């Protein structure tokens, strides 16, 4: 669906040159939710702009549905929510959707049908006739998402989609994206909110200073660790001696422990059972995407 092949981008100014992207290659499959991660200035937005034909790559090539994205037809049924977007403040929300629907080549009947549906989906049905200049940042972000979904896109590019959105709004946006994935939309998310990406994406690529550090599934990156969480029955507490012996910590009714092997874990469980404690749940902990990201970027920064 999306192919990025040895893409490089250099920005030149009279004073200096900035290598924003350097030989980046990866591909995104149809129906996948792909996350592009990176710190600020990693080159994420530049790459998304190249994928939409807004910026020319200095080297390499990209394809969206096997078409060069600089061709207008490559952007048919492609939705985009840019970072730091500036919708025409003079337009009401529904008029902005009509404008962008017309520019997408949609017929009037479809625009008229889809606009209230999508405004309702993103929770703006009562504010659709208000001018965008009167919207909060979160509302504008939701309008942007509605505009991006207007053409029932096959590919959806979202650059920091939850930027400036409160937790409830984030949850709402995540639900909308998951519903789009269910319909088979390929989603490309650009974000530095790793927990959001972890919850939403199937696969991620990590960019650092314009170079691709890693590309893998979220499952592979967040590999199981030797950390376990043990939950005891309601109202029961592990003896301090047992916790100290296994260097475990009790927090909020859980016991968190890191063990060298399964044998040690089972010895600890035997110890707890020996105290006549009821074990309700034992969960293997996975590395958070954030930990993996910091580890990878940290390694890269260390000379």
């Amino acid at each position, binding site marked *: 669906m999306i192919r990025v092949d040895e893409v490089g981008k250099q920005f030149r100014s009279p004073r200096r040159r900035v290598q924003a992207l350097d030989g980046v290659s990866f591909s995104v499959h149809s129906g996948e939710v792909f996350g592009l991660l990176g710190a600020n200035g990693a080159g994420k937005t530049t790459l998304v702009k190249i994928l939409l034909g*807004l910026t*020319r790559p200095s080297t390499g090539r990209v394809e969206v549905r096997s078409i060069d994205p600089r061709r207008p037809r490559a952007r048919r049924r492609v939705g985009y929510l840019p970072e730091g977007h*500036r*919708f*025409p403040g*003079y337009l009401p929300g529904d008029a902005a959707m009509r*404008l962008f629907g017309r520019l*997408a080549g949609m017929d009037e009947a479809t625009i008229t049908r889809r606009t209230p549906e999508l405004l309702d989906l993103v929770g703006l049905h009562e504010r659709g006739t208000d001018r965008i200049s009167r919207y909060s940042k979160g509302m504008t972000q939701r309008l942007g998402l509605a505009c991006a979904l207007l053409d029932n896109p096959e590919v959806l590019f979202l650059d920091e989609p939850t930027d400036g959105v409160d937790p409830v709004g984030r949850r709402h946006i995540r639900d909308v994206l998951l519903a789009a994935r269910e319909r088979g939309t390929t989603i490309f998310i650009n974000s530095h909110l790793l927990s959001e990406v972890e919850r939403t994406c199937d696969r991620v690529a990590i960019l650092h200073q314009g170079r691709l550090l890693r590309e893998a599934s979220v499952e592979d990156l967040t590999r199981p660790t030797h950390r376990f969480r043990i939950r005891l029955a309601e109202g029961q507490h592990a003896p301090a001696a047992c916790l100290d012996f296994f260097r475990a910590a009790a927090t909020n009714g859980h016991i968190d422990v890191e063990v060298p092997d399964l044998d040690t874990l089972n010895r600890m469980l035997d110890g707890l059972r020996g105290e006549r404690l009821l074990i309700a749940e034992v969960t293997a902990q996975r590395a958070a995407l954030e930990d993996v990201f910091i580890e990878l970027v940290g390694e890269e920064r260390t000379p």
Partner: protein
Amino acid sequence: MKVWALVVDTWREVLARYTLLGFVIVSTLFLLVLTFALNLDIVDGSLAAGSLFGKAFDLHGETPIETVVTTGESAFAAMLYGLGVFLAIFATGSQVPNLVHRGTVDLYLSRPVSRTTLLLGRFVGAITLVLANLAFLCGGVFVVISLKTGVWNPRLLLAGGIIALVFLSYLGFMYLIGVLSGSTPLSIMLPYAIYIIAMPLAAHKHIAAAMDSRLAASVVHGLYWLLPKSGELGRDVVQLVMGKGEPSLMAMGTTLAFGAGCLAVAVAVFQRKSY
């Protein structure tokens, strides 16, 4: 449909930013002043007495009304030429800078619309806007004078066409500046500067003859041929309204060529530019 969407967008923008309202208010004020300031007393097809802003005309005996009206209209046409172009540049100067603003241009360019269509769609929108306003301004002057005097001089309406042509040329230039710089102040100031610089170039032969060096003289001639013929076309507007001559095809052609050239470069730059 896409061009139509851009034309509608242009109109909504100028309506929301009160630019159109400002244009209409200034034009209406001009028409009201004309309506109430011009007083004519016509007897047997001749002007017996007349005044402008309360000051009586010096008629030196009986003067045919047509002569007086066309002379007066030519003076108004000269004013309209300056006012019309001034207002039109002001009304459309922010168009391209607003379009290419970071965060806005992404929204437009990410749609399946070519950059050429996008820029030319906005250009068409600006043309419709300015033509409507010029029609109101020039048509209003034509109607007011004609109703007051009973002399219907359609050449005044043709003068509106020349004003529109000159504006089109500057609009092309504004688009180039807008695409290159993304700055509204520059997109307004530079066309005014060109307009003023081009005025005296109508006398380029005299200016060049007074130059010390051949290089300087060549620069003057070069600027004359390159820039819109603001001075000559202003003079042609007056002559046309008075019925004393036709506008110079060379002046109109080179003025249009300047605008078309600027617009073509603007489109080419816009096509290649990274946002």
